[in-house]
């Protein structure tokens, strides 16, 4: 009897383990398929042009060659400058976004005044407006104010992305009001409550917003394409298209530029994946 039970236990256990292995193999196959374009990109960027399209595909190059990167970074287009521009634009707009959004979110969640909810509804409704509706009037307004073809044209609208207010407000609402109330009774002002109590507690939401907005800002293509015309102001995505246009058939070079463009985003994403996922799941928005 005991033996029978034991046999039964092992026979039901074994297929589960086999199933788990089979599933893992399928997942591995699919996962590799998903990342294969990225692996191919990396591989092509390290090859001389003649080897890029050799078939069957050789993923690990015969010899690793850095010349493509040298040409991207020190060639006719100032890729280092594109990098600097991207870092500058992203850093300033994300910082501004977090400061103004968190202040507004505090107002919408912890302060009470007439018209507050109507204002918040107005905020929410603007989230529906596609950026393409705003692009033409912004282009004209920026032109009239003389900030077209400057980084202000990217930074200023980048600070006021409404989903930042929405995301932080939703999080602030979950912070119990008793915390701020007792501080208020102890004589703390709203700025103290905001900076000493709410902001430290909201750290996960702030990091989510930071990473999500970093990724979308860094990848943004339409705004720099439309608002910038001087090459020295280009951010990475528009800068990359110069390589695509100029070196139409030199794919190894284009891939080296693509790897350079993708790397910082991948690093930030992998470092803060949990927060990124939290952010995109909460807002359901692609910037």
């Amino acid at each position, binding site marked *: 009897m005991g033996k029978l039970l034991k046999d039964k236990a092992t026979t039901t256990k074994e297929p*589960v383990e086999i199933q788990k*292995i089979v599933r893992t193999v399928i*997942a*591995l196959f*699919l*996962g590799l398929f*998903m*990342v294969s374009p*990225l692996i*191919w990109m990396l591989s*092509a960027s390290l090859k001389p042009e003649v080897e890029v*399209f050799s*078939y069957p595909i050789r993923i690990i190059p015969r010899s690793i060659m850095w010349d493509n990167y040298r040409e991207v970074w020190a060639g006719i287009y100032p890729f280092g400058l594109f990098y600097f521009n991207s870092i500058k634009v992203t850093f300033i707009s994300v910082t501004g976004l977090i400061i*103004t959004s968190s202040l*507004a979110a505090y*107002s*919408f969640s912890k*302060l*009470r*005044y007439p018209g*507050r909810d109507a*204002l918040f509804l107005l905020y929410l409704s603007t989230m*529906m*407006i*596609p950026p*393409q*509706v*705003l*692009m033409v*009037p912004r282009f004209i*307004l920026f032109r009239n104010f003389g900030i077209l073809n400057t980084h202000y044209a990217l930074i200023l609208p980048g*600070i*006021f992305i*409404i989903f930042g207010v929405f995301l932080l407000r939703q999080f602030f609402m979950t912070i119990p*009001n*008793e915390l701020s*109330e007792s501080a*208020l009774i102890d004589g703390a002002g709203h700025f103290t409550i*905001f900076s000493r109590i709410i902001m430290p507690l909201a750290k996960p939401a702030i990091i989510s917003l930071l990473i999500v907005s970093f*990724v979308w800002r860094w*990848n943004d*293509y*339409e705004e720099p394409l439309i608002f910038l015309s001087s090459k020295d102001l280009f951010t*990475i*995505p*528009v800068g990359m298209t110069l390589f*695509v246009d100029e070196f139409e*058939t030199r*794919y190894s070079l284009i*891939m080296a*530029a*693509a790897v350079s*463009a*993708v790397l910082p985003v*991948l690093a930030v994403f992998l470092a803060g*994946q949990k927060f*990124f*996922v939290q952010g*995109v799941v909460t807002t*359901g928005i692609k910037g």
Partner: protein
Amino acid sequence: MKISRGVSENKGKDLGYGLLFLLPNLLGLLAFILIPVLFSLYLAFSEWNLLSGAAGIRWVGLRNFVEMSRDPWFASSLWNNIVYSVFTVGISMFLGLLAAILLNAKVFAKGLFRTMFFVPYVVSTVAISAIWMALLSRFGPVSEFVRSIGIENPPVWLMDARFAMSAIISLGVWNHVGYCMLIYLAALQGVPKELYEAVEVDGGGALSKFVHVTIPMISPATFLLVVTQIISSFKVFAPVQILTRGGPGRSTSVLVYHIYRTAYQNYRMGYASAMAWVLFAIIFIITVIQWKGQKRWVNY
């Protein structure tokens, strides 16, 4: 005592601070969103060639919308966009669901696979377009593969009207499937085990579990994905602009690409704004359907 609704009891007491905290953002909203929206609305009913200067702006009523109804580029762009949306959203969601089901079962290194599926979502569409351009080029790996299975003259995918749109769709699917997987995975994890056990007790098999438990229980996720993915698919631009420029012919032109050409290549700001408002109307209608339909179609 009412302490649950806000910091202060008195409704108007925080007015000063409330506006002070809101002010920086509100000014930005006004300058970069609300004023542009109103301006855009005015432009939609005007004709204005940017090159003619501020004096050249002329109210034309509905003429932009009449022109739209006769513009073959607009008709093609709208139709192509619908095709793109239906296939990209449908395929991404279907594959995303399959991937989520796979990873929701017992698998080794689950986190690693989730990352592998999701990573294309953070890669910029410009970089993806560059990769697709290389993969689909005349002597690229895709063509070589097709040759190796015995097809002598594979088409030049991006320059062939029969395949160019499919290429753009494949790019969109690769980009978005990981997001769909993520949302479905979260939904699947929320399905109570008891429900599956109940089906087992009734003698139902795996198919019965899927049809009677899984599909209804993840319907909120399906609904969320349909809405957000359709909205995002109507904004597709970079792949078209980089890979095909709407061609060959008009076969891959989409709404935002046509708006872009009209505004920044032909400088017709009024007509471009009118088309942008049609895009807004489409997104608005989808959002309203979401609000209204959530109660009726979704089983919680």
